[in-house]
């Protein structure tokens, strides 16, 4: 009896080098790299090969040259081969909503898959691929591209072109008014800074002469000139502070603008008076420097908030925006926007597409992936009358679905609505609170100073008060936390994690208990060949299997075909199979080279294999009635899950896996990854119950399945390749598949917490000691105005050193 051998890799193939895909740069599987050298062109998948052909076909090969030289700011991934339909983009109702500009020729798209400068280059040259584009401009900060069409252009062609070269575009419908307003406001702020800077510089130059000892007539000239230059600062540049102070006054609230406006107004008044009387105590230089620096710091803070708050993430793109309406009479399909479909109509869903509506199968039979709703990785059989839901994927042959619900009435939307209403309470930044308390202290100190300085001359006393207010300005205090968060946000993006808001980092740092979902998070989430076991003889029968499964549209057929193709690519022939037949639900059979082959399900009783993955099915390949090969299929554990778990174990004391799947596969996966606590067969409500009372929990998962649980968890992370519904309820999402980026994310979050604590302490020390010195009269207003930004710079330096130059987690 020939012992069974697993033929995943023959010894020849094991010696193949690890090559990088020419297009996406990710490692090429060994069976594809066999026999190729480093200089040859090789791809990790057909998607990348396709994109490469398109790019070189349009003489855009420079893309690869640029790519070699540029750093990646988001991880790379292979190109997909499933294309969405974009016909609906040129629908007039859709254009009304999304298009803008002259003749409604411009539209914004959020582009998925941009990861380096070369992508920017390529996207802006899509015009060489698709006619009818007047201009494409990409913004790398927000990943939004503005597309302006030429005379005969269509948005659909542009979107298709983008997708063909490997980037998925999503139309963006941000409220146009809001973004226009904020842009106008930013511009005004910049102009104010410019004016303040201009005045400050010129005033300071004049003051140099004054300090250096100019004589009577020149002195007088310089003083009056600096006074004149100060007017724009006092009236125009400082206006925001007056407005802030006024509204704070009306609302009876303590606000940082109060002392600032007070200092500026009182200082200006005193300076003008002294200018007229000829006294030497004029403060135009200090005050204009003060206004300029404060305005700049404030602007910096604003851009930080804007960047982290508004992220046009893929969260909106849960359900496709278009579907193919099927007319039974004419037997034709028409791409329409989902809003325009009514219950009772029919839609045609080709294989591989996400279903856009709730409905029943009218015609056809097949399989759908209900992963999104149920969390199960095994496809569900569909017959006439079977119910399907928006967001599920048709993995079998094309279906005609009779629509029962569209848009807000679909099950997935209802689920999301219940999830979106659970608002998480806003966390007040600790530094904000500290700043408020600190401010009250300052005001009291100023008051105390005025009283104690009664003995001194008014001018000297005034000097001290002004210095006090300037140096005590809690700029660094207010800047410390946002700055650290901004840097951390960027570090997270580079590590492969996108955060929803600044409080996310705090929550991640606090989390003590880790809860992991199984399907899609720790495993691939889809059907795949796990093992190809030769039972008899020594032929793998790969080409026979490929030919037999070629015509079948069963998900198992795809998995088998894919694997067979990779297993022995050289042996693939295009021979016609005789007597081919498929028995739905059982298998396929046919005759090849005079031998009768069957591929059908077998029970798996082989227990001498210890490697039990999440086994779900076994099929056997029979030659003339004898079982020759056994193929095990299932949901494979991701390659990086084991290593990530190892690192997470050092970061978390309490780790638990909760899944909607059955006990068997759950504990199989858990034991392989070293997770001791497993709870299986948890439906969404049960998961939510479990996490309701755990404020320090970190939930990692995907699928609308996990949405409710994610909302009540302390903090939630959604995994890529998963349902984008999670993005609406999770605080962070990982852009690389699996949990690979999670340990790094946790490390960054904890480091950020440490940095914020340090910088807050440092700025507090700075401000408090500065205050004391000013009280004692050892600091002049000008020195105060210069020292104050020094504290900001110190904070900046600490944040950079702490976050950018930290020791990153090494990956084996």
């Amino acid at each position, binding site marked *: 009896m020939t012992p069974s051998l697993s033929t995943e890799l023959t010894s020849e193939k094991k010696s193949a080098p690890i090559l990088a895909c020419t297009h996406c740069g990710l490692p090429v599987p060994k069976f594809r790299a066999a026999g190729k050298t480093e200089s040859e062109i090789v791809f990790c998948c*057909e998607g990348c*090969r*396709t994109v490469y*052909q*398109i790019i070189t*076909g*349009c*003489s855009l090969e*420079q893309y690869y040259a*640029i790519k070699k*030289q*540029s750093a990646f700011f988001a991880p790379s991934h292979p190109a997909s*081969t499933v*294309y969405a339909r974009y016909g609906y983009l040129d629908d007039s109702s859709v254009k009304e909503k999304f298009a803008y500009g002259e003749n409604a020729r411009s539209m914004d798209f959020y582009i998925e898959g941009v990861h380096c*400068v070369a992508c*920017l*280059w390529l996207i802006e040259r899509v015009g*060489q*691929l698709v006619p009818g584009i007047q201009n494409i401009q*990409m*913004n*790398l*900060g927000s990943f939004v591209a503005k597309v302006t069409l030429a005379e005969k252009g269509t948005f659909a062609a542009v979107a*298709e072109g983008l997708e*063909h070269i490997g980037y998925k575009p999503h139309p963006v419908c941000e409220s146009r008014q809001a973004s226009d307003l904020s*842009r106008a406001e*930013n*511009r005004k702020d*910049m*102009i104010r800074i*410019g*004016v303040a800077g*201009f005045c400050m*510089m*010129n005033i300071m130059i004049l003051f140099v002469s004054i300090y250096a000892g100019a*004589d009577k*007539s*020149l002195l007088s*000239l310089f003083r009056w*000139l600096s006074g004149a230059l100060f007017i724009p600062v006092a009236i125009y540049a400082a206006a925001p502070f007056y407005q802030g102070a006024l509204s704070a006054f009306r609302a009876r609230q303590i606000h940082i603008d109060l002392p600032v406006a007070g200092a500026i107004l009182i200082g200006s008044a005193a300076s003008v008076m002294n200018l007229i009387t000829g006294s030497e105590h004029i403060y135009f230089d200090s005050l204009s420097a003060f206004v300029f620096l404060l305005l700049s710091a404030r602007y910096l803070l604003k851009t930080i908030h804007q960047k982290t708050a508004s992220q046009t993430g893929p969260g909106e793109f849960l359900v496709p925006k278009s579907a193919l309406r099927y007319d039974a009479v004419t037997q034709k399909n028409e791409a329409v926007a989902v809003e325009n479909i009514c219950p009772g109509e029919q839609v045609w869903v080709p294989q591989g597409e996400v279903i856009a509506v709730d409905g029943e199968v009218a015609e056809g039979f097949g399989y759908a992936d209900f992963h999104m709703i149920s969390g199960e990785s095994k496809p569900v059989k569909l017959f006439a009358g079977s119910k399907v839901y928006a967001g599920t994927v048709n993995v079998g042959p094309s279906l005609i679905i009779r629509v029962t619900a569209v848009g807000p009435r679909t099950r997935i939307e209802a689920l999301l609505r219940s999830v979106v209403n659970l608002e998480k309470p806003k966390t007040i930044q600790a530094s904000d609170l500290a700043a408020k308390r600190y401010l009250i202290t300052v005001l009291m100190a100023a008051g105390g100073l005025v009283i104690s300085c009664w003995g001194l001359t008014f001018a000297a006393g005034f000097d001290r008060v002004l210095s006090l207010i300037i140096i005590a300005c809690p700029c660094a205090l207010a800047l410390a936390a946002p700055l650290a968060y901004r840097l951390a946000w960027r570090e997270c993006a580079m590590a492969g994690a996108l955060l929803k808001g600044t409080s996310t980092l705090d929550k991640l740092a606090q989390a003590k208990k880790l809860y992991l979902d199984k399907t899609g998070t720790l495993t691939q989430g889809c059907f795949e060949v796990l093992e190809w076991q030769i039972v008899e003889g020594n032929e793998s029968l790969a080409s026979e299997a490929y030919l037999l499964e*070629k*015509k079948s549209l069963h998900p198992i057929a*795809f998995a088998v*075909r894919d694997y067979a*193709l990779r297993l022995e690519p050289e042996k693939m022939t295009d021979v016609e199979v005789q007597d081919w037949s498929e028995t739905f639900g059982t298998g396929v059979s046919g005759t090849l080279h005079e031998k009768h082959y069957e591929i059908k399900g077998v029970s798996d009783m082989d227990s001498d294999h210890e490697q039990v993955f999440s086994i779900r099915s076994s099929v056997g390949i029979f030659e003339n009635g004898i079982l020759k090969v056994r193929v095990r299929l299932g949901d494979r554990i991701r390659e990086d899950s084991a290593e990530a778990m190892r690192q997470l174990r050092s970061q978390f004391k309490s780790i638990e896996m909760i899944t909607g799947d059955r006990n068997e596969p759950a504990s199989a996966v858990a034991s392989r990854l070293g997770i001791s606590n497993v709870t299986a067969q948890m439906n969404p409500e049960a998961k939510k119950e479990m996490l309701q009372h755990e404020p320090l929990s970190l939930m990692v998962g995907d699928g609308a399945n996990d949405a409710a649980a994610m909302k009540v968890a302390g903090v939630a992370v959604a995994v890529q390749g998963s349902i984008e519904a999670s993005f609406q309820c999770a605080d962070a999402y990982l852009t690389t598949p699996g949990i690979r980026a999670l340990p790094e994310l946790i490390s960054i979050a904890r480091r950020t917490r440490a940095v914020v604590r340090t910088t807050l302490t440092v700025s507090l020390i700075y401000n408090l000691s500065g205050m004391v010195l000013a009280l004692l009269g050892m600091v002049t207003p000008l020195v105060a105005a210069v020292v104050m930004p020094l504290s900001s710079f110190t904070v900046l330096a600490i944040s950079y050193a702490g976050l950018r130059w930290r020791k990153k987690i090494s990956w084996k």
Partner: protein
Amino acid sequence: MEKKNLMEVILILLPLALGIALFFLIAFIWAVRSGQFDDTTTPAYRILIEDAPLSETSTQNLKKPSFDKVDERG
């Protein structure tokens, strides 16, 4: 006497210096208004891209690629 000369020079220098500075301020305001500062991240990356050498780019023969999927699933 020297001081008198200095004084006159100053009367020219000061307005001149202020005028030049003012010119730049106006240029800055104009730049902000025409939207040059709206996106500050992308231009930093754009300048790193080198143009292709002249001899290699051909603008005449750009083939339109066919979008047939390379699909082994028949």
